[in-house]
């Protein structure tokens, strides 16, 4: 510890005002404060401060993202090896998964960190920890076949347009990771949707096969004709409810396992980082809206109307979105009542997009971004109502 401290103390002068690398001071500062909480003290009242800081707050999201990440690595490798006809033992699957996912995560962090440092250096403010979350959330929403240059473009768009032009973490309107994801989705639909993107198949010399196309449950369901039961269609393609809950199927890297998302959400709620109101509201929004559409289902309506509401929770990215994206405090509303409304609206919109708009296979991304835009407005009205109850003091 003394050694590391000395290292920072000795090199500080190069980064301070007038030093050779003074433009890199935010980088130096971020690295030092990663190792040490600085010894700043309070000036006047309140003389003591809570031990919690933003660094720890944000680190908890990283901790909660670890299970989906590790599982995502395993699953990407498993699907790849399965369809390439390779060995399915744990080690080779995991190594294959690492080979697929690690570059994506590293590119996301490196490019994002570059933008973060650039903006921090120009604005002369410290590098915010919010980026650590964005840098990991973003790759987990991507298919494992995403080309690395698209990862770089996506995270650049997310960090710069989604966050930095508004002033950085805490001032952004949209969730930066989702902004980047949405950009890729609309700019490069070929790499983001469609059947062949979800599994990285390797051509093997001896048994050269064509690229296997493997549909996700959401894409499959789009094929259902009116009157068909989506549940039956899914189970024909070997998608049982349990399989979708556990997540051993092709899909976005971190978003396939609804169970792990649930565990992550419970963890975030327990440590007080995520608002349970948003999560419960979101789940309720999905279930209530889907149930309501069940009631409307008839002969001529699309098969989506009659889908079991529980299936909506485990299909696609809704679990991941509600657990990790909707609960981002910066882009969510701040009032407790607004958080219920916000969560519920995200759930309801997700279902509406899925059911009524077959052009978009994934609803939750658009639902969250849409509600991000509305969160300030919800807060505005909730605060108006609340202020009416106050006895004016001027």
């Amino acid at each position, binding site marked *: *510890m003394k050694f*590391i*401290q000395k290292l920072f103390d000795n090199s500080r002068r190069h980064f301070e005002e007038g030093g050779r690398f003074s433009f890199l001071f935010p980088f130096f500062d971020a690295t030092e*404060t990663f*190792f*040490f*909480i*600085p*010894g*700043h*003290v*309070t*000036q*006047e*009242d*309140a*003389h*003591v*401060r*809570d*031990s*919690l*800081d*933003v*660094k*720890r*707050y944000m*680190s*908890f999201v990283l901790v909660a993202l670890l299970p989906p990440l590790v599982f995502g690595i395993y699953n990407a490798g498993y699907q790849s090896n399965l369809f390439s006809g390779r060995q399915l033992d744990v080690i080779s699957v995991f190594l294959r998964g690492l080979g697929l996912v690690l570059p994506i995560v590293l590119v996301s962090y490196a490019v994002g960190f570059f933008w973060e440092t650039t903006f921090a250096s120009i604005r002369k403010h*410290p590098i*915010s*920890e*919010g980026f650590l979350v964005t840098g990991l959330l973003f790759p987990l929403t991507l298919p494992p076949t995403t080309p690395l240059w698209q990862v770089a473009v996506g995270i650049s768009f997310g960090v710069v347009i989604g966050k930095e032009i508004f*002033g*950085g*973490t*805490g*001032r952004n309107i949209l969730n930066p990771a989702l902004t980047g994801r949405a950009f890729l989705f609309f700019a490069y639909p070929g790499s983001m949707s469609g059947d062949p993107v979800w599994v990285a198949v390797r051509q093997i010399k001896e048994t050269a096969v064509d690229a296997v196309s493997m549909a996700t449950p959401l894409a499959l369901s789009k094929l259902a004709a009116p009157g068909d039961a989506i549940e039956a269609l899914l189970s024909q393609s070997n998608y049982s409810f349990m399989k979708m809950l556990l997540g051993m199927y092709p899909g976005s890297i971190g978003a396939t396992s609804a169970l792990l998302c649930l565990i992550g959400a419970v963890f975030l709620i*327990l*440590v*007080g*980082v995520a*608002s349970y109101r948003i999560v419960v509201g979101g789940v309720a929004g999905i279930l209530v809206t889907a149930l309501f559409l069940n009631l409307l289902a008839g002969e001529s309506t699309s098969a989506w109307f009659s889908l079991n509401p529980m299936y909506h929770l485990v299909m696609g990215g809704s679990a991941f979105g509600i657990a990790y994206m909707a609960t981002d*405090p*910066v882009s*969510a509303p*701040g*009032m*407790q009542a607004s958080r219920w409304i916000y969560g519920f609206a995200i759930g309801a919109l997700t279902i509406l997009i899925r059911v009524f708009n077959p052009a978009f296979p994934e609803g939750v991304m658009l639902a969250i971004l849409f509600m991000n835009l509305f969160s300030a407005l919800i*807060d505005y009205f909730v*605060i108006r109502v*609340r*202020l009416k109850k*106050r*006895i*004016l*003091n*001027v």
Partner: protein
Amino acid sequence: MDPILRHGISGLSDKENRRCLREQLFYEQMKSIRIKKGYDLPIAGAPTVDLAQAKRPDRVASLPKRIPFVKPRLLVKEGASVNIGSVLFEDKRNPDVKFLSPGGGTIEKIHFGKRRVIEQIVIDLHDEEKWEGLADFSDDDLERVQRQDLVNTLLKGGCWALFRALPFNDYPDPGTIPPSIIVTLDSREPFHPRPDIYLDKRMDLLQFGIQVLKKLTHTVHLTVSDGQALTGSLNGLLTHVMTGPYPAGEAGVLLYHIKRQPDENRAWTISGQNLLLLADLLKNGRYPIDRTIVVAGMHAPIRQHLRTRMGVPLGHLLGDGVRKSGGSRFVNGGIFSGYRSQQDDYLGFFETALLILAEGDEKEMFGFARPGFQKPSHSRAFLSALNPSPLSMDCGMHGELRACINCGYCADVCAVDILPQFTLKSILAGEVEEALAHGLLDCVSCGLCTYVCPSKIDICAHLKMAREDYYKEIA
């Protein structure tokens, strides 16, 4: 009181039963107010209930700088000889408001700070201190006295500034009649003297004080935050008991919960100990200087209640246990409202506590990633959430300043239902009207929003500054 009394106790005569019932109804006039939001700091270093008599100091001081809003005009010079109760300075805004000497002796030194702010007037005490004679009142006199005469006596006796007018916390305009006066006997802020200790054997003085207040206005509220030990002895004087966490017991919090009309906003407040001073002045006809204080905090050599006098040197309070070490911070007053002092500073006019805390200026390696069983936090982000015992706290920031991330922790602890994160943003945007509508003037400066903020934003200071700016604007 036992609910059985309502139906009468079989062994007692009718007359006794009626008396009990009457007593019970008396108690029931006392309203219980429950504070739902707030936070009790789990801080170690509380004072014991022992009360010791501090030795007589050889000098005392008056600290004009620490009396809010006052613009002092000095009326003494260095080397002058003063008695207890001689006028030291008056307020330029209202020369009737005088501030008197807490000691008899020679003015040893007048310390000026930046821009000639008067920081300390130090008085070297004589062996035999003399008192200025001031008018005294018996109970009968009090019955007959005119309100204006009473106000003039308090002004002349240097005790007017003990009153504070909500919401700005300045002393009230002597020409006004307030909608109510709120007497707060204690504070749950760590750490303050317990009312059962400073009221011991002085209950008659408290009663006399309440009588005085009733001469000044119609409605007098007497409140205590945690009344179990006291309600019996306060025998019908008490009007409100506030339960729940800090800031229960603060006057502004009580007012917020009991007011029905906007015209009740400008209530006056006075703390229990200050009311005793005021009663002492009227009853004995001399300037009161008694103070019961606590010395507390993990770095304090002794932690107990002390009976001493106003303006006492802080180092003197530590007795022989004095230690002039670095790494300790002397706080004049409570942990959320006190100000930083040095060992050779003096106790302030309003202050009743000396806290000595660890400065906490060491760096901590991988501090953000530790389990933190010993790290105090309002959140559930440390294992200390499972640790019920009081924890040692230091004055470290435990993090760096960041932009608000809208977590909403501040709103969770605000006892007067301000939305600190939104109010802060409207203040920063210059929207004073909006901030006022949010209840900026209901804020009691409890400091909890600042304490819990993970972005380390001093929300409370921003609100305080906005309030003071607004006060200057409307004054």
